[in-house]
């Protein structure tokens, strides 16, 4: 099953390696991983998307909690939002093609960020399914390059990933 896991960590060297190693050891392929600083000094937040056996993922989450530099872990099984951004460079040669591409871009609410003579680059934001739909729509014209940020995720409502005074971990 697909799991979206968010991890609040101390911003130290090798933290990312420690985290990814726990997945790698069990043979999980990380589908996407996004990292960035938070509003709290010294704390970064990671969103990991991974496919795997539920029990194994649960064990990985417990092992993540045991890492000294991990403050908190959540598996977004509850209602949550996921967003991803992608840059997509596509071949734009004929006039007819340009018009069709423009239509797709508008339908997905994407934006051109670079327009050239033979190719253009678009920025698109949405949940991972939408990104895939956008790329698939452009496939026929010749997709030259794709860069995705990986999903960033957050629980809806009151649930907040923040340091607790007492953490139940070793």
């Amino acid at each position: 099953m697909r799991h979206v896991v968010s991890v609040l960590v101390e911003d130290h060297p090798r933290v990312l390696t420690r985290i990814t190693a726990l997945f790698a050891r069990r043979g999980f392929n990380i589908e996407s991983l996004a990292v960035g600083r938070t509003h709290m000094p010294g704390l970064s937040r990671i969103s990991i998307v991974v496919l795997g056996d539920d029990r194994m993922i649960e064990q990985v989450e417990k092992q993540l909690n045991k890492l000294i530099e991990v403050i908190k872990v959540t598996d977004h099984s509850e209602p949550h939002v996921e967003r991803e951004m992608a840059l997509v460079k596509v071949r734009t040669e004929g006039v007819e093609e340009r018009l069709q591409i423009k239509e797709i871009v508008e339908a997905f609410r994407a934006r051109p960020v670079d327009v050239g003579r033979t190719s253009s680059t678009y920025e698109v934001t949405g949940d991972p399914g939408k990104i895939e739909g956008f790329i698939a729509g452009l496939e026929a014209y010749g997709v030259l390059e794709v860069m995705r940020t990986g999903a960033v995720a957050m629980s809806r409502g009151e649930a907040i990933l923040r340091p607790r005074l007492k953490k139940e971990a070793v």
Partner: protein
Amino acid sequence: MNGAEAILEALAREGVEVIFGVPGGANMPLYDAMYTRPRFKHVLGRHEQGSIHAAEGYAGSSGRTGVVFATSGPGALNLVTGLADALMDSVPLVAITGQVSRAAVGTDAFQEADVTGVTMPVTKHNYLVQDVDEIPRIVKEAFLIASTGRPGPVLIDVPKDVQLEEFSGDFDVQPDLPGYKPTVKGHPRQLEKALAALGRARRPVMMVGGGGHDAADFLRHFAEKSRIPVITTLKGLGVLPGNHSQVLGMPGMHGTVAANRALQHADLILAIGMRFDDRITGNIEKFAPDVETIVHVDIDPAEIGKVVRTAIPIVGDARWVAERLAQTAKPLDISDWWDRIHEWQQRHPLPTPERDRLSSQEVIRAFWEATGGDAFVTTGVGQHQMFAAQFWKPNRPRSFITSGGLGTMGFGLPAAIGVQVAHPDATVINFDGDGSFQMTLQELATLFKYRLPVKTVLLNNGYLGMVRQWQDLFNEKRYAEVHLEDSNPDFAKLADAFGVRGFTVEKREDLVEAVKETLVHPGPVLAEFRVFHEEGVFPMIPAGGSAEDMIIENPREVQQ
């Protein structure tokens, strides 16, 4: 004060008295600082693996954090097996390794290795010191992490130029570990549920592991008040005395029939400070088929529910929980259950086959009888280890030191060094095999150097015996590369060359005298006992099997 002196000062403030280790290019400043101002006992090993197993023996037998020093590159990499061993068996260690100077890190410099990278999966945590003034905080955190929660090894990698740099930091610092707060107190409601379930149980057992040693007094009190049968895992041997009337012995692959049958028929398992290792459970689908309630007490939440379905999880310190169990325990009405257990015990004692030659079992038993169990025991890994676990009945907690999770051959001799350093006046016996012993035998020099009176009892069967046993049972006796006798050294002469008293025993009539000689000799001894070559360890649950598949006696001999 330079960085090296700051490290030693920080260690002194942690109460460190003994350091095991080997100097080299990248940790010379540390050794220079120790030479200039000696305040620790330093035990020089002959190989870093020996030093770290010694630190494990020191820690395991005393409950204190072991400290080991090694240089960069090969020195640090030689610690890896010991770190993995300590992580698996929850042994508190702090390893301090030299690293090449900061400017050379990452350049493939002489004796450089990415030690924090290599040791990441085999440590509870590790540090690379980048700033000399951070030393006090890092050392303080390292000891806190190593010794609290589920204990484990922590490594601190210190570049040589950091060791030499002028220190201007403050020793009066607090750890900064916002993500580290072990749960010590079990949840009171869970505890109530556990007690209620226990009161309802008809066939309960308590299974105690390595996490139980510091709770031994309370666990014994609880067991005696409740009359619950007690199973001690390999790492839990000694939590209750091995010859206590309620102790059924070790469970699992080479456990006693009574312990395995009790688990097979139990309706409640109260598991404390143990982790349902595969050597205990065998086939997990068939483990404890009649159990209704598993109560699992462990300080590591990741262990609960990892292997078995747990009805009542209690995350907390075994001592904290055991104290409450002891306070509230009531006598259980389980005399029928005890009748069944006694029957298993009487019908299936541990097999002690009659041999023309000496057997490992009778040698171990002779030492136990001669000491009354009043000794520390270490072991290597293999058949001799299992025989020791079966036939040595430890009197006290933390007196049976063995490599459980990792199964590290060569553990016994260096571990015994650490035990003897921690307990200078105690009798320390290393039961070893000819295969295991030869993996770290260079540490005989360490015994001699410090005049440590460790008694190595070498049970020489001329084989890598456990592998031979599996080849016998499962590979139609295709004894691939297990034969050692054709090339074993003369162990008595070898001991002699190291300045250790060595002798060889072959005949049964010499056994009692040899045991006495081993124990009364004031210095270190290597006593080689030439034992029956094709002994098998039984009972045995084959890998992946269950208690139903338990082989109680050697099938080769039953057929004959």
